[in-house]
């Protein structure tokens, strides 16, 4: 195996190396050093930024691993998206980890990096084996990270005093109790979806006799057993993306898991799931998804409707953003239901916009709650007067999520509606626009709490430097790209076109001497 066959995979490989570097640095640093967290977090952010810069320099296009992986503009776009989300997620979590898990910070960053490696491979996978392995590499670290609110102090207390650990009522009041529940829920949903996807794939792969995606079920009328298999795969992936009717874990996990982690969980793995869905359903059908677009359109309509309506009565902003996330994924599925290059581009653009807006909103929420506040609407009361910076940021992120000009979210929604309209999905566009107005109502309810309600306390929440930087970066991206969306739009268009091109040319799967696929 020469370097050339691995060149398209160089970005995920670099992140793997980064994960190992952080792991070793964690071992090398003295355990009780006060600067430990800053060094590890800073190192992780620096390494991720380095890989991000490299993604602009290194040419990663081409086939790798005997055609099991294809690098093109589509994979580069998603790689950058995951790197940015990862860096923002690390910045946002640094102070939280230092305060709550000082001895396990290195593990947090390492697991996060491994999850990012999995995400980066998914969009370019052309072989189901690689896709499944990468998808699980993305998912398994997330289960561990969701349980991370458990503090080191609580752990030692329980070990030294076992009698107390069994007092369930007492234990349930501990601050980490919801995290344990959130983690087990995320895990059970994830493991179930993996099992469902695997069973579906076993039927599809068994009928096709190959694991190569290109034309896996290309026949005009697939065998009934293949259809059943694909339904199961679609259901399994829908669990991961969190769309109706497989969405009930989303608000619960968002409410229970540590908020800086939720900021990452709510954007990056969703983008990974969408990428997997696109790869399986567009490439597997050889670019003619046919009636599968109908199934995806139904999921889109259900998600937009149920997500937006269930978000309305929520008072806990984490749950509100959870249901709103269900709705937002509905819009992305609407773009995918078009099944053409323009739709794919707008989906990629939407996911990028969603990274900045949703992560930003969760990070502001975390900043308020971390300093003795709460995650509900009352906790945000008078935020604009307590801290103009946080208030303004929150307003910007909410407007972006709602799709108000001229935030980045506005362009994202506009492009999706235009693409869907051109593809003839007029009914869904009308439904989506109406529901966007419903969305505006609950987003502005949060903004109202921050701007119109009298503050219950005067002091501004203390916000650490790293968290402040993460929020500022999100704000700059959401507002800056909103005023000048051209660069992002251009690279998203390139990404969609490159995936679409690899379809129309039939994705030549070169049979090299070492290729052992039957």
């Amino acid at each position, binding site marked *: 195996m020469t370097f050339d066959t691995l060149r398209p995979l160089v970005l995920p490989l670099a992140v793997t190396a980064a994960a190992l570097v952080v792991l070793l640095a964690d071992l090398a640093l003295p355990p009780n050093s006060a600067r430990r967290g800053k060094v590890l977090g800073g190192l992780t952010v620096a390494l991720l930024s380095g890989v991000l810069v490299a993604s602009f320099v290194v040419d990663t296009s081409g086939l790798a691993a005997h055609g099991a992986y294809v690098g093109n503009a589509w994979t580069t776009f998603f790689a950058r998206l995951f790197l940015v989300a990862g860096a923002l997620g690390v910045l946002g979590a640094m102070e939280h980890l230092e305060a709550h898990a000082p001895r396990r910070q290195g593990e947090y960053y390492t697991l996060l990096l491994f999850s990012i490696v999995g995400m980066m491979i998914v969009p370019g996978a052309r072989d*189901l*084996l690689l896709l*499944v*392995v990468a998808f*699980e590499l993305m998912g*398994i670290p997330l*289960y*561990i990270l969701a*349980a991370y609110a*458990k503090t080191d102090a609580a752990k030692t207390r*329980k070990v030294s005093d076992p009698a107390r*650990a*069994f*007092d*369930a009522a007492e*234990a*349930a009041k*501990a601050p*980490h*109790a*919801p995290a*344990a*529940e*959130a*983690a*087990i*829920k995320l*895990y*059970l949903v*994830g*493991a*179930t979806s*993996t*099992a*469902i996807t*695997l*069973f579906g*794939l*076993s*039927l599809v*792969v*068994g*009928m096709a*006799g*190959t*694991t190569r995606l290109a034309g896996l079920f290309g026949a005009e009328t697939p065998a009934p*057993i293949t259809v059943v298999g694909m339904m199961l795969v679609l259901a399994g992936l829908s669990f991961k993306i969190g769309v109706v009717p497989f969405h*009930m874990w989303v*608000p*619960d996990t968002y*409410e*229970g898991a540590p908020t800086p982690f939720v900021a990452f969980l709510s954007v990056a793995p969703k983008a990974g799931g969408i990428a997997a869905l696109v790869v399986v359903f567009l490439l597997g059908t050889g670019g003619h998804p046919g009636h599968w677009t109908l199934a995806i359109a139904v999921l889109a309509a259900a998600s937009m409707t149920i997500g937006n309506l269930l978000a309305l009565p929520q008072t806990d902003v984490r749950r509100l953003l959870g249901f709103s996330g269900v709705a937002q994924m509905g819009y992305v599925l609407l773009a995918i239901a078009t099944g053409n290059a323009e739709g794919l581009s707008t989906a990629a653009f939407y996911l990028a916009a969603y990274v900045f807006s949703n992560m930003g909103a969760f990070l502001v929420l975390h900043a308020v709650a971390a300093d003795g506040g709460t995650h509900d609407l009352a906790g945000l009361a008078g935020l604009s007067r307590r801290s103009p910076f946080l208030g303004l940021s929150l307003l910007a992120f909410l407007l972006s999520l709602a799709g108000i000009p001229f935030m980045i979210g506005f362009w994202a929604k506009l492009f999706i509606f235009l693409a869907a309209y051109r593809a003839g999905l007029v009914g869904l566009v009308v439904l989506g626009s109406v529901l966007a107005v419903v969305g505006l109502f609950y987003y502005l309810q949060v903004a109202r709490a921050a701007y119109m309600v009298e503050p219950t306390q005067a002091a501004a929440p203390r916000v650490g430097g790293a968290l402040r930087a993460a929020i500022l970066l999100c704000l700059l991206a959401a507002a800056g790209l909103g005023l000048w969306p051209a660069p992002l739009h251009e690279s998203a268009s390139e990404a969609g076109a490159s995936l679409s091109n690899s379809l129309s040319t039939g994705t030549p799967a070169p049979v090299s001497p070492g290729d052992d*696929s*039957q």
Partner: protein
Amino acid sequence: MTLSTSILLAAAMFSVGVYGLLTRRHAVAILLSVELMANAANLSFVAFSHFRGGATGQLFALFALAITVAEVAVGLALVLLLYRTYGDTRTDAAKELRG
């Protein structure tokens, strides 16, 4: 034993797993049910491979085994965390979050 009976057996195993997943309240039992579902997939992979020739299915089953083992390792750790937190591994104990 033909291909279709093997697949039917796998589908039955999968259904039993789904049933257990929906009715069991004990975290370990739920984990076992999910395992049953994953192993139904493995059975069907191997059955296709056996009756239709080729090693693809067996290869996939090996990968699937490795993945589910990694997943179960994390799952059992989380069950342990649930036990330390609530002193119980029935999922009823963990109902602080709505839904």
